[in-house]
């Protein structure tokens, strides 16, 4: 057991007051009136509009670029091409070990292009339309090269190599071996073998695409980036060295961000191009990524293939673990990768008590858009895999899917539970959540509904899915990929101050994209200072110059309720203590404990009549501080607190250690009906039960569950990014990439339980990602429905109508991938 995280901290009882209540959101008033400020809303005098020239080829050598015609166009301010970028910047820092570490990635393509949509040049002009006109005048000569599309063929002899410097399409490979898999095989009564499972490429496609206005100050050499990047901490680490500039020369500012879901983390290449243009042209430059650019050139979720899967099973349905080969497709560049090669290990056994795990993991580059974090990053693929294992084993051994889950679930009384690779699941009651979810869809009555559907010629199926939102990363896990990396732990910052007129002002280090940070922070602060959320002003958005920014600042990976609110709580407690100390002196109380904070006053506990309004406290320290006693010298009423979760550096030899602090979870149940003639299916009933520990704002938590469910259903039914054999992306916009609209979404039934985290001071857990559950629930329900019509096995995460029709037409093809053998 890793000693640092299993010693529970004191969990406070939910405070009387605002935490735990669904109060009105502070963000809403401006947003419902169209008064939000998103990236494309930022205006600067005389700014130039940037348009990128993008590659039509998936893989080609650039033989020449001629910008003269573009530059000559009336209204064009300037251009930028790869050669300039290569001269003015250094390649982006790579996280991997050789050969992946040798990949050279720049802000614009240098020498060759590696995916359709790769940026080749940039032009700046007086209007958006002119910039596009000019981009069309840039003459680029290409020499097409063979493409690599199938990740399983990327390492073949003779496969084209994307990055000559690396000399191979391999980004990273490693073996993860925990427990004793061979012993498990020997102990098992049966072994279920699955030749191939495949998780499709898709992305959460936030409705606001990426964008920025970048200004350069020649006097100070400082860039200000009004950008909707959702992880400035990471962007600055990537961009500073590339631009050969100090970190503090890059000022990130954002107010409202129109959704991120991880897709707005890896915009550093475009932002560097904008920085170079702003400096070269000495004028603010504006860039908006249009939807087609977003689909062809922005982060996609990792595609992953699981091969030669072996699952040892006991006669009673106890599963002892699994062994497989995993091949992960990173796309053309490793811009956040290979972190996806380890992030999944936060949830190695899924929800299950599997102790013996062996995975040979390989990540390759292909001529597709680069992958990056996407809601449920890397765990989504792995959790889908673990849930597929449960249901395929149950299906093949004719075990009940509910019974086999309950037999293999980690139990409430086993929490905190250490996984085979040293992660610690903090709390939870999976079986109870499952029972609640089953109740919501009327599981007991489903056999009658199945018969009724059959009478109409339809196939009814029910499926269960689950997700684990491992939140609050220990960045030390990066050292399991590359021991030389100097990252570990995590941090987030908040500043809480009392201003001259008694106004409580909170500054966060985060970059929310709809997660309601202003609201939940105000609830925590209000309870600790004895005021109301209306009395608490939380600054909207992010500014790295607010000095409320740390190395890992940002909004990603389900952690605000732990890191963000942890910092808010720490800073507020510091402020409360300073107010008490000040008031104790002014009111002549014996020490700070003689003072209580209530209703905007600091009062003497023994004499509530003796009270000092916050306004007076603020005024004294900020504007009327002559003659204060020396013991108050450190009282500023402006308190900055950095929250650091208790982590150790993992054991890089055994790839063992605690990778995340909290584990929120969801159980989903899906009931659907298939039309066997067409493969068209409709979701009739859907339930999601959530447990994210103590909920500061239940309505906001439920909203996250709704949204994650919609993403998962979209990925299961409609959303994927297929490429043809030339490497052309075939879902380049919302016309071909259908996202669920209001008529596509089934009614959702939700419920929640609270298993407070013993490791966080508020009992909260990060949550919000969760999408994987619904992808699997649909796969399982389809497999259940098809049982009566050929008994096909669902082996892909994405199952559009024609895929279901193929499973109905030719179930043998899928059945041939699965075998049960006596051990």
């Amino acid at each position, binding site marked *: 057991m890793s000693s640092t995280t299993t010693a529970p901290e004191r969990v406070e009882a939910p405070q009387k007051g605002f935490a735990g209540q669904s109060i009105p959101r502070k963000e809403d008033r401006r947003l419902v009136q169209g008064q939000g400020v998103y990236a494309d809303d930022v205006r600067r005098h005389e700014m130039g509009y940037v348009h990128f020239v993008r590659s039509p080829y998936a893989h080609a050598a650039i033989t020449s670029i001629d910008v003269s015609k573009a530059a000559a166009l009336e209204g064009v301010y300037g251009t930028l091409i790869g050669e300039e970028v290569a001269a003015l910047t250094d390649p982006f820092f790579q996280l991997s070990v050789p050969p992946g570490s040798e990949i050279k990635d720049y802000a614009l393509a240098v020498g060759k292009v590696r995916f*359709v949509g790769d940026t080749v040049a940039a032009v700046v002009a007086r209007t958006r339309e002119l910039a596009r006109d000019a981009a069309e005048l840039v003459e680029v000569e290409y020499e097409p090269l063979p493409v690599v599309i199938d990740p399983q063929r990327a390492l073949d002899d003779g496969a084209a190599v994307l990055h000559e410097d690396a000399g191979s399409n391999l980004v990273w490979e490693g073996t993860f071996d925990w427990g004793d898999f061979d012993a498990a095989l020997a102990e098992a009564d049966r072994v279920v073998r699955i030749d191939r499972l495949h998780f499709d490429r898709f992305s959460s496609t936030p409705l606001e695409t990426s964008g920025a206005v970048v200004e350069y100050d020649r006097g100070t050499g400082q860039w200000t980036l009004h950008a909707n990047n959702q992880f400035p901490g990471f962007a600055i680490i990537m961009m500073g060295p590339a631009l050969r500039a100090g970190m503090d020369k890059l000022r990130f500012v954002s107010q409202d961000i129109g959704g991120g879901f991880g897709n707005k983390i890896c915009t550093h290449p475009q932002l560097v191009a904008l920085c170079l243009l702003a400096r070269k042209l000495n004028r603010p430059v504006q860039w908006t990524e249009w939807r087609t650019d977003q689909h062809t050139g922005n982060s996609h979720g990792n595609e992953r293939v699981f091969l030669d899967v072996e699952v040892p099973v006991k006669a009673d349905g106890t599963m002892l673990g699994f062994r497989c080969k995993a091949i992960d497709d990173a796309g053309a560049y490793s811009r956040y990768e290979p972190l996806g090669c380890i992030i999944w290990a936060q949830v190695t056994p899924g929800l299950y008590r599997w102790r013996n795990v062996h995975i040979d993991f390989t990540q390759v580059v292909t001529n597709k858009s680069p992958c990056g974090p996407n809601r449920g990053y890397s765990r989504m693929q792995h959790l889908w895999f673990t849930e597929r294992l449960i249901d395929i084993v149950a299906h093949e051994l004719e075990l009940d899917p509910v019974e086999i889950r309950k037999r293999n679930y980690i139990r409430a009384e086993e929490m905190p539970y250490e996984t085979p690779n040293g992660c610690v699941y903090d709390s939870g009651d999976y079986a109870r959540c499952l029972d609640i979810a089953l109740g919501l869809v009327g599981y007991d009555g489903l056999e009658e509904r199945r018969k009724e559907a059959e009478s109409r010629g339809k196939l009814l199926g029910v499926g269960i899915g689950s997700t684990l939102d491992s939140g609050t990363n220990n960045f030390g896990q990066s050292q399991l990929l590359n021991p030389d990396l100097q990252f570990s732990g995590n941090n987030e910052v908040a500043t809480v101050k009392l201003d001259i007129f008694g106004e409580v002002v909170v500054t966060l280090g985060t970059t929310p994209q709809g997660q309601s940070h202003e609201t939940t922070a105000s609830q925590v602060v209000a309870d600790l200072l004895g005021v109301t959320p209306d009395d608490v002003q939380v600054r909207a958005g992010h500014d790295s110059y607010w000095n409320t920014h740390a190395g890992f600042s940002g909004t990603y990976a389900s952690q605000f309720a732990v890191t963000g609110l942890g910092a808010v709580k720490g800073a507020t407690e510091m402020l409360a203590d300073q107010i008490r100390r000040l008031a104790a002196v002014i009111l002549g109380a014996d020490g700070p404990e003689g003072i209580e904070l209530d209703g905007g006053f600091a009062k003497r506990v023994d004499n509530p009549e003796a009270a000092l309004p916050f306004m007076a406290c603020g005024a004294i320290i900020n504007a009327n501080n002559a003659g204060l006693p020396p013991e108050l010298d450190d009282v500023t009423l402006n308190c900055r607190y950095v929250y650091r979760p208790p982590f150790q550096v993992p054991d890089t030899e055994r790839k063992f250690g605690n990778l995340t602090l909290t584990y929120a979870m969801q159980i989903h149940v899906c009931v659907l009906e298939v039309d066997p003639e067409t493969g068209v299916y409709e979701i009739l009933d859907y339930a999601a039960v959530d447990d994210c520990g103590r909920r500061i704002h239940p309505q906001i938590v439920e909203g996250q569950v709704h949204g994650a469910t919609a993403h998962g259903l979209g990925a299961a039914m409609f959303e994927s990014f297929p490429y043809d054999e030339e490497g*052309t992306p075939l879902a380049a916009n919302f016309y071909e990439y259908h996202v669920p609209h209001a008529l596509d979404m089934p009614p959702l039934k939700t419920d929640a339980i609270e298993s407070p985290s013993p490791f966080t001071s508020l009992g909260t857990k990060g949550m919000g990602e969760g999408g994987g559950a619904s992808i699997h629930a649909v796969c399982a329900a389809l497999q259940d429905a098809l049982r009566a019509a050929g008994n096909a096995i669902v082996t892909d995460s994405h199952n559009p109508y024609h895929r279901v029709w193929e499973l109905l037409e030719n179930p043998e093809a899928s059945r041939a991938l699965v075998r049960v053998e006596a051990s």
Partner: protein
Amino acid sequence: MRVAGTRTYAAPREQVWQVLNDPAEMAGLMPGVESFEIEDETHWKAKVKVPLGLGSMRMSINFEQTESQPPEHARLHAKGNGVGAIMSMETAFHLSEEAGGTGMQWEADVRIFGQVASMGQRVIQPIVNQQVQNVLNAIDERVSATQAEGGEAAPETGSSAAEEGVHPGSPEAYSKEPEGPTQSA
């Protein structure tokens, strides 16, 4: 995407060869060709405007004749540049003498790159068929015209889909029957 087909002309092989190897004249017959210039024996340039109802797709195309064995066989490579689209075509035809005329076997491998390829997968196939039909029709016209000039206007035994009153792109135009083009993606 590959398209291929066969046709028969009621004209001597040399005459058909002449038509097929007079690019300037051919260009003149093809719909949408705005300008055409011959650089040398084997290299030509054309600016075309592919009519697409809603608007026209402008392309500048460079042709290179890569093989030529009069009067039997020729192979052509064409590369076109348009807004959001790059077209690359490898095409060849083979002429054989047949009773009362000339048989032509032809094939074309057309590849489209760029935004258009992403957005138009569903429609590129039929659009290519439509353009192929236009070219075939142009050849038919030219062949019968030269026949007429040559005096006896013998009717053709072969025919283009359009002459059969079949609209380009309608199912017949896809059929694997020898008369129409066939394609494999």
